[in-house]
Each structure stands twice: as structure tokens, then as C-alpha cells.
């Protein structure tokens, strides 16, 4: 799934809000078996180096969130008013 295009649509001003929402989805999810150990370690590395709000950091969070809680992830963009991002995400997901 090419998530670069999706993340690219997130306005700079909302990147921190998006990372916060995605982090909450990941941290609250009980479906920890849906995230690979290598992706978890990548996210820890991003967090350690303050990279979670960068495009790469957001992409890693989005990948984890989609694996763990796809519906909640879609809703999170909708709630932030990022309809275009949400639509792109659906297109990318359907295109898989």
C-alpha cells in the first residue's frame, strides 16, 4: 500500500494532530499481534528521534494504525475534517 501519497495530503499545520490521533489508536488498541516487531521498533526509533510528525514518521504510524484498527483510522481523518485524505486512503486501500 502506497501511503506516501496519503500522508502528503496532510496539511503541515495538522501533522501533529494527526500523529497524536494515530498514536492514540495504536497505543489503545489491544490488537498488538497486528503490528510487526520491526514496525513497532521503527515507530520507537521515530519517537526517540522526534520524527513522528515527519512524513516518514506519519507513514509508519498510519501503517500501524491501519493494520491494527482500520475503521478507527479512517474515522480519525474524517473527524479532523481531512475528507480528501480519507478518500485517498480509501482509494489506496481499495487499490491494493
Amino acid at each position, binding site marked *: 500500500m502506497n501511503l506516501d501519497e496519503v500522508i502528503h495530503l496532510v496539511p503541515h499545520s495538522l501533522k501533529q494532530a494527526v500523529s497524536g490521533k494515530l498514536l492514540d489508536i495504536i*497505543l489503545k488498541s489491544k490488537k498488538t499481534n497486528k503490528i510487526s516487531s520491526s514496525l513497532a*521498533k521503527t515507530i*520507537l526509533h521515530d*519517537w*526517540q528521534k522526534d520524527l513522528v510528525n515527519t512524513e516518514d514518521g506519519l507513514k509508519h504510524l498510519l501503517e500501524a494504525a491501519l493494520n491494527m484498527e482500520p475503521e478507527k483510522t479512517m474515522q480519525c481523518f474524517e473527524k479532523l475534517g481531512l475528507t480528501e485524505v480519507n478518500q485517498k486512503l480509501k482509494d489506496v486501500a481499495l487499490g491494493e
Partner: protein
Amino acid sequence: MEFGIEFVPKEAYWKTTFYSMQAEKRGFDYVWITDHFNNRNVYVSLALVAAYTNKIKFGPGVTNPYLVHPVITAQAVSSLNEIAPGRVVCGLGAGDKTTLKMLNIAMFKPLSTIREAVRIIRELSSGAKINLDGAIFKISGAQFLFKPPTSVPIFIGAQGPKMLALAAEIGDGVLINASHPKDVERAVKHVKEGVTKAGKNLADLTISAYTSFSIADSLEKAVKAVVPVVAYIVAGCPETVLERHGLNPEDASKIREAIVQAKWKEAFSHVTNEMIEAFSICGTPETVVEKVSHLVKTGVTQVVVGSPIGPNVRKSIDMIAAEVFPHFQH
């Protein structure tokens, strides 16, 4: 004034690591990770904390010498100290009866056990050779084959008067398992007696209130998160402590019975506001600041933010840093 935070490794390893890094970024001084055999291993969790953080102090909070032999504890904390020199602390207590009972381990002579365990951990983690013909442990010439970088400060988890006095006498720090100023004040009195008896300087001892803590932007949310934790505390609470807070032991029995039968909803329904008040620091930032201020007045030098922390741990950590820390010299 120092702030510590407790994590229970019941969640996947990366969540505990994430929150520990967040605690460091937001200015906490200590991360304490609980040691129960039925959760993730405490030292595996701490190894990741050591690897992913740079300045925060951390350690088991607390391990016990009944389940883990003190030479193994000394080995574990000394190995961690190699990864993060000078940042490792060791929380040690007599353990919790429920867990030990499950494993058919008796809590035999807790005071002697802790005294001897502290000696073993301290000497081994300092690189010394130890011979001990104790009442509990017999050790003949044990020494590590590696050189630990520094000795590891030992914090003793205590509740009763004798253990509190012992902790003050032989510990580098005391972890008082209480949230209410009334209980903490009482404990600090015993700690001060122990310090005097040992001829120590009170300023050399870190006195910590190891609290049950829940902070949120509304009281309702904070209460909802803390109720299960308070239910467990009340269920295991001695009658004398319940009576000190004007709580009815019969209500505690109801909670205990419901927990034993795994009727969680019923157990939690018996938790009252008075119980929450007695056994937790719970509320909005404003309330929490007021309650922490009361604790500080008792003489504690560290407040440990213990489970559940809040309904959303990530947001609660940020909230503590932004709205609680500025009120204290930290």
C-alpha cells in the same frame, strides 16, 4: 521535588518503551516498572528503557527476594547499569501475598529477608565478593566475573512501621505505598525514626510516595479510570487502614468477594468516592496539584505517579508535565 512514574508491563513491550521515552521527554525523573511473574519480564522491559532513553533513572518497582534470588536481582541491575551507567535503581519489597500464595511461596521473615537481600544486592552490584551466613540466605564467596560500573541505589517498598524503619535504616530510598497524606505522614514518621536510629542524615534518603494516580480533563474520566485500581487496593487493605479512613470493612468484603468470583462490574460498583479519596490521587490537574501539595508537606521528596495514570496514558503524561510540574520545584 522529584517525580517518578510507574508502568505495568501488561501491555506489549513497545508500549511500555514508548511511555518511558515520553516520561523522559516530559521531565520525569524515574521510571519504575512493576515485577509480577504474570506480566512481561521486568528486566526485559527495563533493558529497552535503558536502550531508548538517555537521562531518566529507572528500575524494578518493586521486585521481591522470595521469587527472585537477590544474586539474580544484583546481576540484572548490574547488567542494566552497564547499558545505562548511573541511571539504574533497584526497588525491592517483600512482595504481594496474593501472587506469592499462587506460587505456594511463604512470605517468611520479611524483615530479615529484606535486610539480607539488600546486603547481597548492594555488595555484589558494587563488585565485592560476598560471604553471608544469614538467617535466610547462605552465600559462600559469590562475586561477579564482570566489573559493575557503579553501585546501584536500593529503594525499599514498605507499608508497615517496622519495614518503614528498616527501609530508612538500610535503604537509599523508601517507596511508601500510599496516596493519602494521612497514610504518608504516618509512614514518614516511622521513616524519620528509622533514620535517627541508624544515625543517618534524612537528606541522604529519597522518600517517595508511590501513589495510585489518575489525571484527566474531567473528574468523571479520571474516576472511571481509577475505580478498578482502587477496588483492588480496598480488597487487599488491612481493616486498620480502612478504619483510619472511616471506611466500612463490610464494603471492602463485598468488593473482595466479587473480585474472587471475577464479578468485576459488581466489584467496581461498590467503590465509593470516599475510597477513591483515601487510596488515590484522582482528578483534574487543579485537584491533582492540590493533592500532591499535601503530600509534599508530609516530607516526601518523590511522588511516583502509579497506575492507572489516567484514562489516556499518553495524554495524562503530557498533562502532568504541562499542568502539574510547573507548580513544584522540579
